[in-house]
């Protein structure tokens, strides 16, 4: 909980520094924006580019549109601060969900830096700038890989970075510790979960056209607030083990205590004059049934022709283990009312388990046109295949059959600027 107050302190510091400019502080303001118009053709399956944003179907101007502003504050030779806010279509519209960065940084010497506050997570290739459409190729970061990743895109804490020349390349190593509490909507209910004791170790090696990245992180799950899940857990806890022996197992699996999530990822970029090739693979190991172990990855290939980069790619996300089968016990000996209640509880448990399964793949084609120094235009078409019971990254209404495959076609047209 200690870390949570740091970003607020940083924001106050920035406002104070605005009044102290005459005392030698230097403040630079900059920003970025994307206006995106897209159409999703499946009315039963709601799409959002990341877990924290509102899902919808059909035409949308808000799906991937956003506006970001940043202040860089130089305080002295070795101290500076950065604050960044991004307004986008968050499902929960709170200050906490719009503050992306808010840290102070101390550089004790050339190769070291220490940051404290709200920090970008540095786990993925794009994790430091997922909202800056101008800076990457696609209409949005690959969905299978970056949708759930958004929940830990930033955290409140401290990191220490060391960088130096190694061989013919440049190496950055970072160790970070902190916590984050993403808040989002699920089935029209607000949901929040705290990733506590979040430790991340990451390394990046840059050499000519190549960028290699490796990262691993570990966090504890705590303070899971979700009315539907809390009701389900209470219901499971109320069933005697001699009536339904699996109830305690599922209750333990859904509750937030005593669970950890480990995440490891590798990324590679090749970027020369003609080609831009990017790939990442990540694996999550988790015993928490709300976010079970999975593996995801993508490959994207772009080719530049003058001011236009044409690209295509594919992405995959899949759970690593089959879900536990829910076995309905013999209930005939119970009064009819209790039978009905337990059958409903079993159905809800099975639905919750199935809705946590990720099993999808997608293909995309598109083009990015470098229109001017500050403006890029993009067009992109995506085809998603969601396997039966594999739609955990999608907003699927309870009335929609999740036992069948769903396909979604998404067409996007966007303009991204920096200023």
């Amino acid at each position: 909980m200690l870390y949570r107050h740091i970003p607020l302190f940083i924001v106050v510091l920035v406002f104070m520094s605005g009044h102290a400019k005459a005392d030698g502080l230097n403040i630079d303001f900059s920003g970025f924006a994307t206006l995106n118009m897209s159409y999703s053709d499946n009315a039963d399956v709601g799409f959002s580019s990341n877990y924290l944003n509102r899902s919808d179907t059909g035409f949308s101007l808000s799906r991937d549109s956003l506006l970001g502003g940043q202040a860089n504050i130089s305080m002295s030779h070795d101290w500076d601060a950065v604050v960044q806010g991004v307004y986008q279509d968050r499902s929960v519209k709170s200050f906490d969900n719009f503050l992306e960065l808010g840290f102070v940084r101390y550089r004790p010497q050339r190769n070291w830096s220490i940051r404290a506050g709200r920090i970008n997570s540095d786990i993925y290739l794009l994790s430091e700038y997922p909202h800056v459409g101008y800076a990457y190729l696609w209409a949005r970061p690959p969905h299978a890989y970056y949708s759930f990743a958004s929940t830990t895109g930033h955290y409140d804490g401290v990191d220490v970075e060391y960088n130096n020349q190694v061989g013919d390349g440049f190496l950055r190593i970072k160790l970070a510790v902190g916590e984050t509490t993403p808040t989002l909507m699920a089935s029209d209910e607000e949901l929040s979960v705290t990733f506590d004791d979040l430790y991340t170790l990451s390394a990046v090696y840059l050499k000519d056209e190549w960028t290699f990245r490796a990262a691993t992180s570990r966090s504890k799950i705590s303070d899971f607030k979700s009315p539907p899940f809390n009701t389900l857990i209470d219901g499971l806890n109320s069933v005697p083990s001699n009536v339904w022996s699996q109830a305690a197992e599922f209750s333990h699996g859904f509750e937030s205590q005593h669970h950890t999530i480990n995440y490891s990822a590798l990324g590679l970029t090749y970027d020369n004059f003609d080609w831009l090739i990017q790939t990442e693979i990540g694996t999550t190991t988790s015993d928490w049934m709300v976010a079970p172990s999975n593996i995801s990855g993508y490959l994207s290939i772009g080719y530049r022709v003058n001011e236009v980069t044409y690209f295509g790619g594919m992405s995959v996300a899949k759970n690593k283990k089959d879900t536990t089968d829910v076995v309905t016990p013999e209930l005939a000996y119970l009064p009819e009312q209790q039978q009905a209640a337990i059958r409903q509880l079993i159905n809800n448990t099975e639905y919750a388990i199935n809705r946590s399964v990720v099993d999808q793949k997608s293909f995309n084609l598109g083009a990015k046109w470098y229109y001017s120094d500050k403006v890029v235009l993009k067009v992109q078409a995506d085809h998603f295949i969601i396997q039966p019971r594999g739609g955990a990254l999608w907003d699927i209404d309870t009335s929609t059959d999740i036992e069948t495959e769903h396909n979604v076609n998404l067409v996007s047209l966007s303009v991204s600027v920096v200023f």
Partner: protein
Amino acid sequence: MALIKLISLSLLLLSLPGYAEELVVVVNKDNAISALSKQEVIDIYMGRYVTFPDGKNAKPLDLPARSSLKNEFYLKLVNQNERKINAYWARLLFSGRAKPPVSMTSVNEVLGHLRVSEFTLAYIPESELIDAVKVVYRLDEN
């Protein structure tokens, strides 16, 4: 025969790669740095470090956007055109890592900053050298 030799010599001189004016990286004469390697210039101009190798603050300057000198500088330094440099700096700036070099409107404005600040680093054509600055790296060096 002498005329042919003269014409041949003139054509040879015109076709030499070095005929185009050389770009040099310069600092204020009061800066303690006497020379930088190509790698050290890359480190500063690509935002990897915010200081000179001796730990003093470095304030790199850029020539105007879409100018042939700026394009030539980055092509020779990191083999990247301005379009890629702009995307690169968008990534660095909005990840909070570093701020891009300050863009100037002309070589004269660059020289004005170099005269008054020992922390400034810039690239200029060799013909624009003035007494207040010293060359720390030549772009045609390897």
